[in-house]
């Protein structure tokens, strides 16, 4: 039961974009491991990331009838 609730919570967070920053950080770490260049860029702060995420999300047709 607890496990199912946890899964549901994770899906809810992912659906709403609540965990977008955490996923971005994971992605960032993965990428910098592959390209092997840790100093070329710092990850964005949560605030800055969220700003960019929101602005990009709202460019183009995102809702219809």
């Amino acid at each position, binding site marked *: 039961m607890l496990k199912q609730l946890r899964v549901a919570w994770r899906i809810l967070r*992912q659906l*709403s974009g*609540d965990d977008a*920053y955490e996923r971005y950080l994971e*992605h960032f770490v993965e990428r910098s491991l592959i390209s092997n260049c840790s100093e070329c860029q710092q990850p964005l702060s949560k605030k800055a990331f969220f700003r960019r995420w929101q*602005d990009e999300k709202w*460019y*183009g047709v995102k809702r*219809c*009838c």
Partner: protein
Amino acid sequence: MKKLIWLLIALFGAGAVGVIALQRGESVNALWFIAAALCVYAIAYRFYAAWISASVLACDATRITPAERLENGRDFVPTNKWIVFGHHFAAIAGPGPLVGPTLAAQFGYLPGTLWILFGSVLGGCVQDMVTLFCSTRRDAKSLGQMARDELGLLGGAAALMATFVIMIILIAVLGLVVVNAMKHSPWATSTVAATIPVAMMVGFYMRFFRPGQVLEATALGVTLLLLSVVAGGWIDHDESLRLCFDREGLFLAWSVMAYGFAAAVLPVWLLLAPRDYLSTFMKLGTITLLAVAIVMLRPEVKMPALTMFINGTGPIFGGKLFPFVFITIACGAISGFHSLIASGTTPKLLTNERDIAMIGYGGMLLESFVAVMAMIAATVLDPGVFFAINSPVGVVGKEAVDVVAKISSWGFPVTLTQMQHLAEQMGETTLFARTGGAPSLAVGMASIFGSAFGERLLAVWYHFAIMFEAIFILTTLDAGTRVGRFMLQDMLGNLWPKMAETSWMPSVLFASGLVVSGWGYFLYIGVIDPNGGVNILWPLFGMANQMLAAIALCVATGILIKSDKLKYAWITGGPLLWLVIITTLAAFEKVASDDTRIGFLSAAQDLAAKSAAGALPAEKAAVASQLIFNLHLDALLTLFFVVLLWLIVIDMLRVSSRYLAGKPVPPLSEAQYQLRLVNSERLMD
């Protein structure tokens, strides 16, 4: 064993469709609608969608998708298929499938329900799925880009134009629906108005106070929204406060325009993004609640299967069953607008081509199910009540006594006390002539919710339903205005490059103003038109939406033929042919019909003649010249749609026949095959 189960589902589904189709004289239980829908969807998904995915499109689980190949952690993000499904559904589901079936219920429950079921599984779902596939194979390109690449410049320009015009008409008609729901209703107006500061508070919270804490902020917002529904009731009971919110349609129309302009100019984080979160949660929550309530309550559908209005004399909108039921229910059966989401947006998240059937086809099935529920909510009302709410003043008259007499004379008995009692229960002063579909849907939903979860709260349920409809109508309205602004800035940028800068204020203000005045004009006319405006605007919207669907299907059919899949081209070619037939016929009638309630030109002539003879009532005479101009404009717009539609169909046929004859055509713009680097376990699922 499996075969046996599917056979049973097929038989039960056929039985359920048979019950709703053949029942005469007695009422049908709404559960039969749900059963018929679920069986049809299950069979279509299991067999038709799976076959299209495997044999026609040859979706390839080993092929890398743009989300993986172009992954950047921001817009291209490989995402779990259920999450993608959620995003896709939230994006395609709007007010369309709620309003369309409600209006089409004037023909009886049967034609609309059949078109929702079979139009979606054979048309709408296929369109969404194939478009999603084509865009996934083309670096998640938009429909417009694909049309340009695959068909040529004409196709691209037509897709762009169609998108822009449909946006204008869509926003106008949705604005009209909200205005009609708020007209002289202090409770509804104050609740809808409160959603704006609530969205702004949530916006501030997410931007500055706790950046990125989306769920927290949404929970706060939803609580405030529910509170605002209750608070609307308090305002309604306060004599002085209720006067502030008791407004004419025209005032509300100007407010909606001012709001749309502000939403297009203000930064997204302040209004648009938070409102969208709230509306998505509200939408998913309320639709689930409605489904649960219908199953719990098992209401009887009181509307007959067919009404006499299939002959074209319906009070809500003029026009015969064929072709107008197919125009009125656009979203819910097939909606061209979805192709804009299925191309460009969703493919950027898709991890595996195998999931295309589930997301594209399945997403539309769910949307179609929403339309079935809207149909149920409209038809569980007493038909007399349904027509009393939805018939405009221009058709049934202004005096309540005349209205009930007229509607009862059609064979749908309704009494004055019944309507008064209902209005009192819903916390409104009157429910007569509340056209647009939203109020009658809200009454239907309130009676379903009320019976299932507590009768005493009917007025709260009613205004909750109004708020629920208004919030995502306004979300479509402000998102649409903003997109229209971007598109216009882009187009103007071809003339003067500086105009294309989306952050250059003069250009922002100019383009936003132009877009708002575009839809604002149609909204204004819709409000001053005594025939309700819906009669004109909804068919225009339906035709525009079907035209966009035809463009998407043209692109898909062209791609199938150019991929040497001529023998399968009927899966998109069939729905395309149907849409071309119904759109052209409907357009022809809207322009050329002698019936003044259908034909724009004959209505203009009739109005001009009456105006010259001085035979019009004073309030109509004052706006006659504006109405006449508008009718001519509508006729022109309809012709424009049809010409655009035929141009792109001919262009697709030209490209296809050149390809089949071995002549040079624009090459397939499909991305090169690249193997997905995944472990075998992920390949299996």
